[in-house]
């Protein structure tokens, strides 16, 4: 008896026994006789074993006949939803650049339901090796038309043959991907003759090498047989691949620029708490007050609701933000809610600010507001009904005097925009309006110590917002005091 000797065995990239395969058969694959998947699996398995990369290779199983590819490959595996493998692969490749990610996809998966994903991943130059099986038909679901089905080819959903006037022409994936700037390598091969399979073997190794070297996106398209669904024998199948499919899908290298590309360099995440705090926490710019500080004036004992309005571009939102910042710096709970979306793009802009010692209920100020800051007449007219009967109105009268019909209210006015322009920039109108607020607050509500604190907190707030721009801070403070000097109450 001579000893049995294995000369050419199963590749090391496969499991020795296919335990994951349900049912009694654990030694061979689920693919039909003559199917290209088995050949391609073997080429990939050999390559990942030869390259010694199994411990960091993740093969994404598509939806299609290769959905069960994880039965066979001895490396990490994940199933993606139909067509989404390039997105799943993007997540894997970005999460850890050490991952070697293979997206294994068929023509329905890649070229139909997931075509946008593959183009976008290619266009981003993701570090993926994509192996694209083009067999001109949907195999798994039983022989329906694929985007790569040839004109005239009969399938379950083109019983009379694919009509180019109805279903269009076979989709040329390699050509399309190669037309993008980012991909480094695109080649179309065929799994037909031994010679062509050997060429495919090299292409697969090249794509994987690109991934290992982090050169980015490689795609190898493989024309592949599906004799069962195409109802062909082995000989006819090869004839179909080499003569009919190859006519629409010419074999060859469509792009190969990996040598000219630098490896992708992704940043390294920072998690050390001190560093995170430094990068994320705001800089403390003012000494401010202690956490227990409370302004004593009675006005601050209940919730104060403020509405600010004007036209888009007048700085209404930043005026509200300044008020909210002042509140924050004096330990109030504050809320600031802008009008958002299309309303901001032209027309009136408004925002709501609430200051309270207690938790704030509604951040929406749509009635009973204590203070209305209106930067023009249309906004004033629109929001005046939200003002409480004893509420106070602050009005920028640059664009016209305060309308007569509101004169029974407590009103403070200031030509803020005009004065701001004189100071050199309309942007300073906000600080001038806050100067007017200071005058009003001092006249009506503030204890002596809070009067001086209002100026202080304004200056702190300006620092808080603009500490990197010294001249902006200086001019805003100047504007504030001009506002304080020029604001006046309308006596009625």
């Amino acid at each position, binding site marked *: 008896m001579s000893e049995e000797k294995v000369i050419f065995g199963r590749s090391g990239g496969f499991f020795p026994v296919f335990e994951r395969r349900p049912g009694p058969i654990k030694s061979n694959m689920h693919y039909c006789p003559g199917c290209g998947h088995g050949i391609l699996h073997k080429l990939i398995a050999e390559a990942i074993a030869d390259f010694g990369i199994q411990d960091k290779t993740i093969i994404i199983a598509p939806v299609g006949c290769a959905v069960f590819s994880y039965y066979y490959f001895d490396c990490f595996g994940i199933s993606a939803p139909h067509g989404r493998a390039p997105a799943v692969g993007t*997540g894997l490749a970005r999460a850890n650049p050490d991952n070697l990610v293979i997206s294994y996809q068929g023509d329905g998966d890649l070229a139909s339901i997931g075509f946008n994903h593959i183009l976008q991943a290619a266009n981003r130059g993701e570090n993926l090796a994509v192996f694209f099986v083009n067999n001109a038909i949907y195999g798994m679901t039983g022989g329906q038309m694929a985007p790569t089905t040839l004109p005239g080819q009969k399938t379950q959903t083109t019983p009379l043959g694919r009509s180019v006037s109805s279903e269009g022409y076979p989709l040329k994936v390699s050509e399309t991907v190669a037309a993008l700037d980012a991909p480094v390598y695109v080649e179309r091969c065929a799994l037909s003759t031994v010679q062509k399979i050997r060429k495919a073997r090299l292409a697969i190794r090249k794509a994987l090498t690109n991934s290992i070297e982090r050169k980015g996106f490689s795609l190898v398209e493989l024309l592949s047989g599906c004799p069962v669904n195409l109802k062909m024998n082995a000989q006819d199948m090869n004839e179909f691949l080499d003569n009919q499919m190859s006519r629409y899908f010419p074999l060859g290298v469509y792009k190969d620029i990996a040598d000219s590309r630098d490896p992708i360099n992704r940043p390294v995440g920072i998690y050390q708490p001190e560093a995170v705090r430094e990068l994320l926490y705001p800089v403390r710019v003012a000494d401010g007050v202690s956490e227990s500080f409370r302004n004593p004036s009675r006005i601050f004992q209940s919730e104060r609701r403020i509405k600010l309005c004007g036209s888009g571009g007048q700085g209404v939102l930043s005026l509200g933000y300044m008020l909210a910042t002042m509140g924050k710096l004096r330990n109030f709970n504050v809320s600031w809610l802008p009008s958002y979306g299309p309303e901001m793009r032209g027309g009136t802009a408004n925002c709501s600010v609430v200051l309270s010692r207690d938790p704030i209920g*509604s951040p929406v100020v749509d009635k009973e507001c204590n203070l209305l800051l209106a930067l023009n007449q249309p906004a004033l007219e629109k929001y005046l009904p939200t003002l409480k009967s004893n509420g106070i109105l602050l009005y920028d009268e640059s664009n016209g005097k305060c309308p007569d019909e509101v004169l029974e209210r407590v009103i403070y006015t200031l030509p803020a925009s005009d004065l701001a322009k004189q100071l050199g920039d309309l942007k300073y109108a906000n600080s001038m309006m806050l100067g007017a607020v200071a005058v009003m607050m001092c006249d009506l509500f503030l204890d002596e110590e809070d009067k001086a604190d209002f100026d202080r907190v304004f200056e702190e707030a300006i620092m808080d917002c603009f500490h990197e721009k010294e001249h902006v801070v200086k001019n805003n403070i100047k504007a504030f005091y001009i506002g304080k000097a020029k604001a006046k109450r309308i006596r009625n």
Partner: protein
Amino acid sequence: MEYTNRILLKGNEAVIYGALLAGCECFFGYPITPASEIAHTAARCFPKLGRTFLQAECEIAAINMVMGAAANGRRAMTASSGLGISLKQEGISYLSGEELPALVVDIMRAGPGLGNIGPEQSDYNQVVKGGGHGSYHCIVLSPASAQEMCDFPLLAFELAEKYRIVVYLLTDGVIGQTMETVTLPEPLSKRAEVPAWALDVSRPRTNLISSIYLEHDDLEALNKKLQSKYAEIRANEQRCEEYKTQDADIVLVGYGISGRLCRSAVDELRAKGIKAGLLRPITLWPFPVDAIRALGQAKEFIAVEMSDGQMIDDVKLAINCDRPVHLINRMGGNITTIDEIVKRVTEIVGAKEA
């Protein structure tokens, strides 16, 4: 340089600060109003910490990128609003079947269809009841302030990893858009560990993430395993905030901005002599049924929500419909006002007394 942990942030900004402090490594998203500031803030802050921000080509891609990063054992998140969440449902079903932890933020706007960008709470059913295919649940936390938007990502990742489940933060456009004072939490003391099951070089390569089970019995076994996990979550993870409920005759139930409005309404109603209270669910799934059932003295419940009445079903189920449950709602981007709530509750109480 000296730092402070007090900051003014929109809810949409706060959730990114919270996520980064909770060690989130990857953000994948797609622009949509009123959730876009989440992506803006992520685009600014993730790279600052050397972490991954990527604008995906679509909502579907974003959730699948999250799937990839989560499979790798990384803390990953995405964010969107109703329409985008509809598109993500396929991926969320997969994540659930694959038992992958992830954070999904939904800042609800008005629907159906394109609707408008005003706030609504009409994604409740598609998020809380599971909008994708299959028998699965996600834990749903509902923040009602910028502070909670900042605090909840840490809780979300802890729960997500503990149970291997998708955790949503579900709130409305008002909470997303409102800027409030926030006290930033402390950053995680160290990078979150890569879980044993992850597809990571530090783990055995036999690790496999899949939701396909060809044998019916195998898939049934997975489903049973999921259901027992959900039972455990129902038993252990219900959360809510109660305000003046202990002696309340009438209990308002509302989440997100509606919960905030109800709190103010309760004070006004109490001032008028009506014994009202608020139960604000913090977990919408699991719904805080135990807390609701404990309110045996309550005579009536009122669901306050910005939808056709979606959460109200869970209130009714919680009490087995044994007492009246009323609905106060607005739709189309309109926000319920405190006045309306007070008026309607007063009417309801009045009608009962009459």
